[in-house]
């Protein structure tokens, strides 16, 4: 188990190193930089622009810039924004709670509903309920979350003359307003996961329910509830866990557009703006934080596999 854990951590480190270098280099290969953007339409001379570039270190070769950045990063200094001059770390950390609340709610609600619907569909296989769940799942899987958000926003404003509050207030400041503000985003971000989860739960449940050990459990005289909750569901957990990890990526990715749409000041909005502004320190740091978060979650899920399935723990993988 220790060896298994260490190996997972090593993989994670390699992924992080690759992500860092790639993001750093790609961002700088994109034409346009923060200096041209800040100075456009100002009539500033080419010399002044060059001086500003030198100040940001933008005229050094990419590898020098990467090295300088890494040296700082290891000491906890992720650079400062080219625009406000604020430290990237505090800029990012200020916004993390907003996105975490949004993402977590979307995932929890999406997963619970998805798993519930999946179980219902599996148990009532072939019925109208099953058909409805499947149709619903396919529909939401095919529609991107921002389209769902757009439709809801338009429907509510046209039919009920209602729109979310314009100004974001955290749950601690004004709970009612916060709830109204995140209702559509949470639902929109959650639907994709809910649909995927429902399909996955349904198919793994069906596989479990049709297997020999379930027949054995039933033969022992176990009730329907025990069969489903204790035996079939637990054995379907592995695939659902995997999906949960992937869903996190979808939700985090979704926040980039959704936060921008709904003026929610989270990390997604920060990244979106920073990319457009070519605010390299912010983009690089945010991407690396996101990647780190993702890697950590994947490692946790890998470890959870081992807890759920003893065969993984002992090194005998599933065949």
């Amino acid at each position: 188990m220790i060896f298994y854990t260490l190996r997972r951590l090593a993989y994670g480190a390699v992924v992080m190193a690759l992500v860092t270098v790639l993001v750093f280099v790609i961002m700088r290969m994109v034409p346009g930089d923060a200096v041209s953007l800040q100075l456009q339409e100002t009539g500033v001379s080419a010399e002044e622009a060059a001086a500003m570039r030198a100040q940001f270190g933008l005229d050094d070769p990419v590898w020098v810039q990467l090295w300088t950045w890494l040296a700082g990063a290891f000491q906890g200094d992720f650079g400062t924004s080219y625009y406000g001059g604020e430290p990237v770390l505090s800029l990012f950390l200020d916004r993390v709670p907003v996105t975490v609340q949004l993402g977590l709610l979307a995932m929890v609600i999406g997963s619970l509903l998805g798993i519930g619907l999946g179980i219902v569909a599996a148990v009532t296989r072939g019925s109208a309920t099953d058909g409805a769940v499947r149709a619903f799942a396919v529909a939401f899987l095919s529609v991107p979350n921002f389209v769902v958000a757009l439709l809801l926003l338009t429907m509510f404003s046209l039919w009920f003359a209602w729109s979310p509050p314009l100004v974001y207030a955290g749950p601690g400041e004004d709970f009612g307003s916060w709830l109204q503000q995140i209702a559509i985003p949470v639902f929109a971000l959650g639907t994709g996961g809910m649909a995927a989860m429902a399909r996955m739960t349904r198919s793994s449940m069906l596989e479990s329910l049709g297997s020999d050990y379930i027949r054995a459990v039933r033969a022992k005289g176990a009730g329907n509830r025990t069969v489903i909750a204790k035996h079939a569901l637990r054995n379907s957990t592995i695939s659902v866990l995997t999906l949960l990890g992937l869903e996190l990526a979808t939700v985090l990715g979704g926040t980039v557009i959704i936060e921008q749409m709904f003026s929610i000041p989270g990390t997604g909005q920060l990244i979106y703006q920073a990319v457009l502004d070519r605010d390299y320190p912010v983009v690089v740091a945010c991407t690396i934080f996101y990647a780190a978060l993702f890697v950590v979650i994947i490692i946790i899920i890998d470890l959870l596999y081992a807890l759920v399935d003893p065969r993984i723990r002992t090194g005998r993988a599933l065949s």
Partner: protein
Amino acid sequence: MKRRALFAALTAAVVTMAGCSGEGGSSAGPGGEPVPGGTLVLQLPAEIKSGINPLESSDPTAMGIVSGTVYSKLVEFKTGPGVEGLEVVPDLAESWEITPDGLTYTFQLRDDVRWHDVAPVNGRPFVADDVVATFQALKQSTGVHGWMIEPVTDISAPDEHTVVFTLSRPYSPLLEYLAYHFNMILPREGVEGEFDLATKAIGTGPFILDSHKPDVEWVLRRNPDYFVPGRPYLDEIRRPIMTDAAAVTAALRSGRLDVGTTSDANMAEEFRSRGGFSITETPGAPVSFYINPEREPFDDPRVRQAVVEGIDWAGMGENIRGRFNLTSMLRPDTSDAALTEEEVREVRPFDPEGSRSLLAEAGLPNGFSTTLTVQRVDDEDVREAQWIQADLADIGVKVEIEIVDPATGIDRRRSHDFAMAKALRGVHLADQVWRDFEPDSIENYALVDDPELNDLIAGARAETDPAARGELYRQAQLRMETEIRQALYPIQKFDYTIAGERVHDLYASPIYQGRRLADVWVTQE
């Protein structure tokens, strides 16, 4: 913009301007007697990224927040019902005199003005020394708009309420630049660093900067000591940052947002047909079109002419923008010297037949292939490019469209890395065109190097007689349209301000004119 969203620095610019500027339509009509009080919720299309220091920022969104609202200027462009074009009127300066040689400007300042009662300025009286401090700092800053007062060699204050500008040469655009949104008057305390101009604004304007929640909203509140009696009417202006058109539409419909802006004619039309909103159409940014003479075959002036006259610019404006002005170099909404629509049709006819023969003359009877680099801010930008592509295909020119975001677009134009390029041009005053054609300017994207054009523009900048100045500008436009054809502003698009019925007396302005918000009032439930 600071934060700018870069999305657009241009977009934002354009939109903000419209936002903060545009109204004057039906809501301006008789809505009864103005009622003091209430809150106006006005969309801010992008967050301000680089701070609000008027000596350093060139961010139009930042200007939209503080210029004319928090900070006053020496002089101002008039706004109100039926006002068109640019008329310079008093703001902090009550009156001014210009010597006949055009080298000395003397401004008499109001003596009843106090700074906002905010530390460290604490409501002290406004004096001539503040004006001197502001412009001396502007001249010394490496800043972005110091060039606007470049010929000014000395600014002095003979007494507390008089300011004298001394110039090294006659410079006709000075008054317009002093009324321009960049040139706000700051307290000496701010110039000398007693508070941070990038995050704090203490002015003499109708509104006091109350709070800013980053990426969420800016809030202004009423200045009870404003020097214009009875103004402003509003107690508060909230500027929530909203970038998404769908969110703006929903918020206008639900009534949470009072005023929103867009460049999308369809969105404006949708609100117009729905009723309950007043829509104001304001002339906005010119669409710019550049041809790089260093890329073959554009080194041949006949090929440039063939391209320019092979495109149906009016058809493009009509079909894609809805409302538009057919224009040359100058904006008709800010300059009387702008060529009229008929004149433009004459010097730049849509003539595909002629274009084909020009190409044949140039040795390209079968046309050629080239690329058009398009800076995308909204969908219209791309649809215009497709229109150009279709028109040029008709004369045998095969165009590949390359769509880029604003950051990339600016970079590519500055490095002259394009064959043909299309973007939006974010300027307002006639004088600002020099930067597009001056050989040393970094905004001379199309490598224009025409001594005769430069002489005409330099002459116009020095000419103090408005009629003579206008004539020089007209000749400059004709020269560009008929001889050079490298940098054109073929049409001017319109922006739309959508205001709910409770908003009254919000009048349009071609610049970021925050002072007009002092006249706005809202019906209260």
